[in-house]
């Protein structure tokens, strides 16, 4: 294996093939656990119903678990993610929710990169001095904050104080344009509607900031420690001896090499970010699959939605695998010594 584009294609193909066993494993686990969670579900969920609804439910749940899973898999193979226990199909919810969640996660990742990484560089440059300690206090307080607490504090106290909205994607829903992508900012931009774009950005800011703040520690900390490894090396000295200013020495020569570790770790944090969306989306009423997952497992007194929960977990699993794949590709681009294999 080498570094030509065809090697990259083979590498990506191999890694995507790994998705198949991952998906089978993850659906088996979530399917079994959701279906074991409730005893005699039909009587619990529809105590006062008779006739068709109850009969349908009893038909669904009356069979052995492996038969139920087999039926689920065969419908999945046809691209059908199933039907909720209340009879609502899962597909449209996932199709509309994934872009919204993706938008939130990407915005959080963006904040983590543009704030967390420079903070790590600053901490490494001033290692042991007050700026370093200040940065450490900042990222540790984020790391130590439980997601629900951070989200609730931001929504209740910070939002009015900063004058930022804390509910939904737009102030007025539905917006007066077609939602092509279901990413609020992108849709508003595609429609050329600048007031709505600004409105969407305002709505996006707080949930993304909460997600970023809570997960930022890992980016800052990895950047700091790998910068501390890189800074004493000779090539940083030779960059200085070229007459480059400290800014370029740090951000062009040292950070480029330090980022190699940070990128890998950012790929791993994708799991944390996705998990965080479940709480953050519910608190900020963000119409993504995190909020959908919250209701699917019976949050807020909703009727559980087993197929929906399995679907969300499967989507999250795909998200984590793809995020790690992207991180590995970036790793190869950042470090010319790495072969794609």
């Amino acid at each position, binding site marked *: 294996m080498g570094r*030509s584009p065809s090697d990259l294609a083979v590498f990506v193909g191999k890694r995507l093939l790994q998705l198949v066993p991952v998906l089978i494993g993850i659906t088996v686990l979530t399917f079994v656990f959701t279906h074991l969670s409730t005893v005699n579900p039909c009587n619990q969920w529809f105590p006062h119903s008779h006739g068709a609804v109850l009969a349908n439910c009893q038909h669904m749940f009356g069979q052995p678990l492996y038969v139920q899973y087999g039926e689920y898999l065969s419908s999945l193979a046809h691209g059908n993610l199933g039907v909720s226990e209340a009879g609502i199909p899962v597909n449209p919810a996932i199709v509309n929710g994934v872009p919204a969640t993706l938008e939130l996660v990407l915005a959080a990742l963006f904040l983590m990169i543009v704030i967390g990484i420079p903070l790590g560089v600053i901490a490494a440059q001033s290692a042991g001095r007050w700026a370093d300690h200040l940065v450490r206090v900042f990222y540790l307080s984020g790391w130590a904050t439980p997601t629900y607490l951070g989200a609730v504090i931001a929504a209740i106290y910070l939002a009015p104080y900063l004058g930022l909205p804390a509910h939904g994607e737009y102030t007025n829903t539905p917006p007066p344009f077609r939602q092509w992508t279901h990413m609020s900012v992108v849709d508003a931009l595609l429609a050329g509607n600048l007031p709505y774009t600004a409105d969407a950005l305002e709505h996006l800011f707080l949930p993304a900031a909460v997600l970023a703040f809570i997960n930022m520690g890992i980016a800052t900390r990895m950047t700091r420690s790998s910068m501390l490894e890189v800074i004493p090396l000779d*090539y940083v000295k030779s960059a200085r*001896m*070229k*007459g480059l*200013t400290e800014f370029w020495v740090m951000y062009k020569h040292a950070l480029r090499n330090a980022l190699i570790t940070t990128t890998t770790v950012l790929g791993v944090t994708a799991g944390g970010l996705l998990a965080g969306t479940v709480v953050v989306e519910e608190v900020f009423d963000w119409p993504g699959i995190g909020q959908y997952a919250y209701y699917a497992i019976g949050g807020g007194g909703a009727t559980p939605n087993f197929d929906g929960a399995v679907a969300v977990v499967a989507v999250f699993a795909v998200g984590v695998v793809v995020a790690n794949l992207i991180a590995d590709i970036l790793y190869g681009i950042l470090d*010319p010594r790495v072969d794609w294999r």
Partner: protein
Amino acid sequence: MTDAAISVEGLSIDYVVGAGRFHAVTDVSLEVPAGHVVGIVGETGCGKSTLAQAIPRLLPEPPATIGSGRIVFQGIDLVKVPLWKMPALRGTGISMIFQEPLNSLNPAYRVYDQLAEAVHIRRQREAGRSRVDPRPPPPFDYSRRPAPEVGEALSRPIVPAGATGALARKMRERHPELRDEVLDYLRLVRINDPETILELYPHELSGGMRQRVMIAMALSEKPALLIADEPTSALDVTIQAQVLTLMKELIEEVRTSILFISHDLGVIAETADELGVMYAGRLIEFGPVAELFDAPRHPYTKALLRSSPTRYKSDGPLSSIPGAVPNLSRPPPGCRFHPRCPIARPVCRAEPPPALLPADGAGPGHRSACHFAAEVASLP
């Protein structure tokens, strides 16, 4: 005094580590006359690398602290220059070649990008876009040695198609003048087929090639002073010889002022005009190379010369200096060499020798720091 490329006056550097204080460099004064090559030799840990890195203020401060002294470069005392202003003096003013060619090139950038960056910085400064405007550096002369003839097989690009290769090449074609100059410097350091080398990453080059690239990078800034910090020590013996030959030829061609640090007397003998000997943080002898080799005026220099293998055939066991290098956190009182010195007397224990006096009967410019410099000649 004014025609010195750099003059170091009474420089002392300490490392403060925990509660301890290591006197890495104590009261060193030396001068590199413009256009001269000054060598510094000494054992490992004698402070020569610290001195080399202190001149362009490359030492991490803390733990290093410059206690006293002046480093005068182009009329400016570098010790007093705030660190954030130093970049303007580095590169075109003072440039440096490091010991480890494996580590001194950035692994993430192609050879071209690193060289072009250096050339670009110099061009910016030549165009007057610099805070400090150094005097025009000594002129470079490539004319003496025409570019080597390159066979067709060598000039054929053998670059592996990297994912970003096409883009990098496109960027390169946008600055043909930078590219031409980079190629000139690669030819200057006798790299055949520089067109191919441009596209490679440092890890794709051998150690000797990397050091050549490093030398090209340092020279491409046309520095007023070049510091070579053991440029051949980390290489194989055969490659060492090649790089050393190259350095010697370049010194002839480029005529810049060079401070050449080494622990290898043979290397220094072949390259330097003047030689300084350091021991335990002090400069103990300084003089023209030939004279210093013929008639050393310090017992340590004498012992050092005797203990270095000079011929391929051996006549008896190699002599060594008895005792060990002193601990620099508590250097011995008086002369730092006295515990190992064959001619030490009570005064050596009590009083440090006067700093670098002209030795009796020695030629001009030959100075040593020994109470009994005149007796050294009679030592075996």
